[in-house]
């Protein structure tokens, strides 16, 4: 199981990483592993405003469909369209090419309250 040290984590298994003024959002290696082979990803429209903990998309595997939640509040600036044709990127590279959206966050407090990789690893092991 991988835990990208450059990202911070939400308890519903999304990660966020700073990229200039934006935050890149994806789901963790643990999340993709639990879901199994992902066959469909639904993403929000750019420009949509998300509140922290609001579902913003759907990942579907052969086992189940799950909501993906916003780890912080903000406007959706970009979405990873390549997931539409190639949802398997979430499985093969969850912290890289398998990113979901980029958000322009409202504030830094929500970001700073998320778990570090180390804390998230301990959280996952306790599940």
């Amino acid at each position, binding site marked *: 199981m991988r835990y990208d040290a450059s990202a911070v984590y939400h308890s519903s298994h999304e990660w966020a990483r700073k990229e200039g003024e934006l935050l890149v959002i994806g789901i963790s290696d643990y999340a993709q592993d639990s879901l199994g*082979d992902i*066959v*469909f990803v639904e993403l929000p429209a750019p420009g949509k405003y998300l509140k922290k903990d609001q579902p913003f998309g759907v990942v*579907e595997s*052969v086992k*189940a469909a799950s909501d993906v939640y916003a780890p912080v509040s903000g406007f959706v600036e970009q979405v990873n369209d390549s997931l539409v044709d190639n949802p*398997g990127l979430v499985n093969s590279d969850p912290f890289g090419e398998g990113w979901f959206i980029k958000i322009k966050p409202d504030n830094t407090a929500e970001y700073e309250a998320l778990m570090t990789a180390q804390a998230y690893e301990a959280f996952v092991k306790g599940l």
Partner: protein
Amino acid sequence: MKNEPQTGRGAFPAFSGKEPGKELGKELWQESPEAGVWDYSVPGREGVALPDVDVPGCELPPGIPQRKELPLPEISELDAVRHFTRLSRLNYSIDTHFYPLGSCTMKYNPRISEKIAALPGFSLAHPLLPEFLCQGSLEIMELLQNFLAEISGFQAISLQPAAGAHGELCGVMMIRAYHQKNGDSRRLRMLIPDSAHGTNPASVAMCGFQAVQVPSDSRGNIDIQALKSLCDDTLAGLMLTNPNTLGLFEERLTEAVEAVHNAGGLVYGDGANLNALLGVFRPGDAGIDVMHFNLHKTFGTPHGGGGPGAGPVGAGRKLAPFLPGPRVLREGTVLRLAMPENSIGRVKAFYGNFSVLVKACTFIAMLGAKGLRAVSENAVLNANYLKKLIERGYSIPYNRTCMHEFVASGHLSDTIHALDVAKRLIDYGCHPPTIYFPLIVKEALMIEPTESESRKTLEAFADAMLAIAEEARHNPDIVKTAPHGTPVGRLDEVSAARNPVLKHSNEKAP
């Protein structure tokens, strides 16, 4: 045949000479034992010879292809009959084998119900007959309405909905209509436990409500504190399945219903698991306001598979005027059809799926009150007996006395998952249980034996399950690559979901 036979398949493709393989790695069944319909096609062959046209012909409008230009297989009637008969013999069904598909209640469909439904007075009744010429059919519907009201404790029943999910949608539409009639248009939030059937949030979304998830507690009940904190004046209601999808009786039911009612909301009962409750517990008495019935799960009518279903909906005092219609009403000795006062309207052509209603009515009349109670007692006993046997090899995450079903974990090792257990069960001649549902149990195996099965069948199934747990330890490959003894091996579900081929044609798939 255009192509020469390659593997002994040719003039007699159903008899390819291959045996079901039990050995690993050999992939003895590379192909289905029955060819595709195109393999029987011969250009110019027709199944039926029609007489020559003896009336003047006319030109088709431009752009409409003629039949002879359509890409259809050209086969004789006998070849078509044989092809589909052979395919049908590959079927697995409740009439051939044990079918412990959790949440689906795959119980025996008594033959007497089929006989009664086929009586000419029922099967030939025309839906446009005036009421005075179909009093017998209306009486069966009235009887079923009364039976279901008595069983569930509801004030009134509508037999209109065509399936369980349809009945559920009607129930949520009735809740919406009730709040709208009261001018409570800001009541838009519907609470749904995290163990609920996926149809619940779907029905809620269809009605323009917002689904709000309520967590479960450590005993598998609804988390009553979380529920109470979500009850306010924007609450439309709560959707509650009892027993829940873990197969557990909802121990906080009374408190939950009370909290929702106190906040001005209504409670929808998901009747999918009614098979555990007959003659023991009546949802209407517990204050539930509206509930659907799955006649195929509880009253032994055939499961759909594309055929007709029936999902009657029952309601208490507050929601009865909102039921879909028409319903059968008695005026002295005469039966007629009438719409409830504030009805959400007609939700199905004519009067529901009538033949299914006749079958359910037969099932109830044959068993009587004592027999129905015995149905639930045996369903619960069978599930608990099976749980005891299976927990020798599998963990049961919420392990307390269950109702009609239970959920085990198929996580046998880091490499063997619920899917592998399910596929290996097929080699043991058994339909797999429901897997990966409910979502709150990791690697869920949801097992429901129903009241129909004998102790011997239950023990044979448990033996198979325990043998697979043993194989997972000592011979994991045989589980990981199962099934081995079937016409086709492990199917590539991922490719099928990512690149679905939804069209049957003689062109090779890309």
